[in-house]
């Protein structure tokens, strides 16, 4: 077992990922990184 003081599971793996990092790693190329534009372009 790891040393008691590090007897933990780090759900972020040491990386402070923002919304856009998460989406980028998933290969999403959304508008401004996290906006889904509707097909008929209502949003812009």
């Amino acid at each position, binding site marked *: 077992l790891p040393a008691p003081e590090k007897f933990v*599971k780090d759900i972020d793996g040491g990386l402070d990922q923002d919304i856009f990092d998460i989406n980028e790693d998933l290969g999403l190329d959304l508008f401004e990184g996290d906006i889904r534009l509707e097909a008929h372009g209502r949003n812009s």
Partner: protein
Amino acid sequence: IIGDHYRWPHTIPYVLEDSLEMNAKGVILNAFERYRLKTCIDFKPWSGEANYISVFKGSGCWSSVGNIHAGKQELSIGTNCDRIATVQHEFLHALGFWHEQSRADRDDYVTIVWERILADREHNFNIYNDSVSDSLNVPYDYNSVMHYSKTAFQNGTESTIITRISDFEDVIGQRMDFSDYDLLKLNQLYNCTSSLSFMDSCDFELENICGMIQSSRDTADWQRVSQVLGGPENDHSNMGQCKDSGFFMHFNTSTGNEGAKAVLESRVLYPKRGFQCLEFYLYNSGSGNDQLNIYTREYTAGHQDGVLTLQREIKEIPTGSWQLYYVTFKVTEKFRVVFEGLGGPDASSGGLSIDDINLSETRCPHHVWHIQNFTQLLGGQNINVYSPPFYSPEGYAFQISMYIEALTNVGIYFHLISGANDDQLQWPCPWRQATMTLLDQNPDIRQRMSNQRSITTDPTMTNDNGSYFWDRPSKVGVVASFPNGTQYSRGRGYGTSVFITHKRLKSREFIKGDDLYVLLTVEDISHLNSTAAVPDPVPTSTVQNACSEVECQNGGICTVQDGRPECKCPAGEDWWYMGKRCETRGSTRDTIVIAVSSTVTVFAVMLIITLVSVYCTRRRYRKKASANAAAMNLENQHAF
């Protein structure tokens, strides 16, 4: 985004789809509470309204902008998106907000370094002029929860956004909570004048002391002062930082007459939700036996003076420092909060002081971890700090550890530990969500940007060695000791090493008077296991059998009517599905087409009939005329 048709109603219907992770569901509901506290936006489970937001576990974290009247408008909270500020961010998109740095005047405040942006991602830094998006006359907001961070879409390690005011370099991209300007814009956009759960906040800076009144049923009064000889030297709101300000209420128990009592009552308050959380800071510079009692005076029918109910007795108050207290109420009628100070029998050199009161219709944290002299922990070695042991409402013993790295980050972890109830509890610990909040001690609860992370105990999660992660600590944990030497078992910690950076931790009022507070709540969220809302009637188990061989299309819901499965079809504002299995789509546009075509058909048929009848009539008339003419000729012949 400009356009009223993009607005949602103030109460937004939603569905938490079953695809969502359990922790995400709890985090989303917590995010809704932040909206209810600080804005007039509320959320309600979908019950068939035309448009609603369907929150599901898609790939990544994304949303549309504004109400796009799609009926079912999707919003994705995927893996690693279950952070409360991420949910707040995506719902702000759904409410009609773009990203902050896409404002038309963005270049006045930040500089985009285009060559450091990932290839083909430059378009993410476009700005939109004020014909498309409206900044609502609010200044540029480095602190917005909608702002990119300085490393957004970087192709290396250098910043893609540089703030013209360098102090804001590490502020942009905060993912803690709404900023003041976020709230200003949202409340302006939706014409908010009140919020669902905020009730009162008082720092006693105004002489009207927020409408609080001195009771006559006591022997002394609370005084509005800015310092007391025996302590505190200054208030809690400003910690004495502001000249000629910084007031708090003080009850002097040093007068020496035993049993002195001072009662301070709030103005009349009107609850909406039936549950409340009172929060305030208390300073004891009197004797160890001075006591503060918290009552509610509820005005019910037939009780003109109200019914006084003791809610909390606060005894053995630590002396010499401001302490944070929470009291839970369950009041349903209009009421006052009553602070009753009682002087103890022992000699006192000061008294009781209260400051920074906040009352809201939210849930109080279950526990408060108060860390004093915090700054000495920063800037030293890597250090691990453990909280005292706490118990969840069901009796699970737990502890929090804070891992302070020397340079950059502070981590936080939740540990189950061995406790007195372990033999009666269910193991592995099922679906308890632990929420850990680093409190921003701004006197006004509405202006706080506290940092919060939630984790949920998944009973099926295993360690590398195959044991269950959340099994009984005495089975899977390690032996540890409390400061008093008592031994206990501590389970593995579950949390994050990047809870907050040193820079942010030193910002705002996370550390105030060298005190730091972590608020802790451990809730059973197993009821969220299947939460997808269905319109009435709610399917029952028999429905499941009768419906098991029926598949309704296009989102139809199978119900049983008179023992037979029937599909209830979804409908929107101008569209609907119909047919036995909701296989046919209809819309008002079809109706119009049908109406027009039938009108034209009727007109054509009538026209034909008219023409034919005219033709026949003319032909008959012509025939008659010619016959008459012939007869006349014959007659004339005879006459001659």
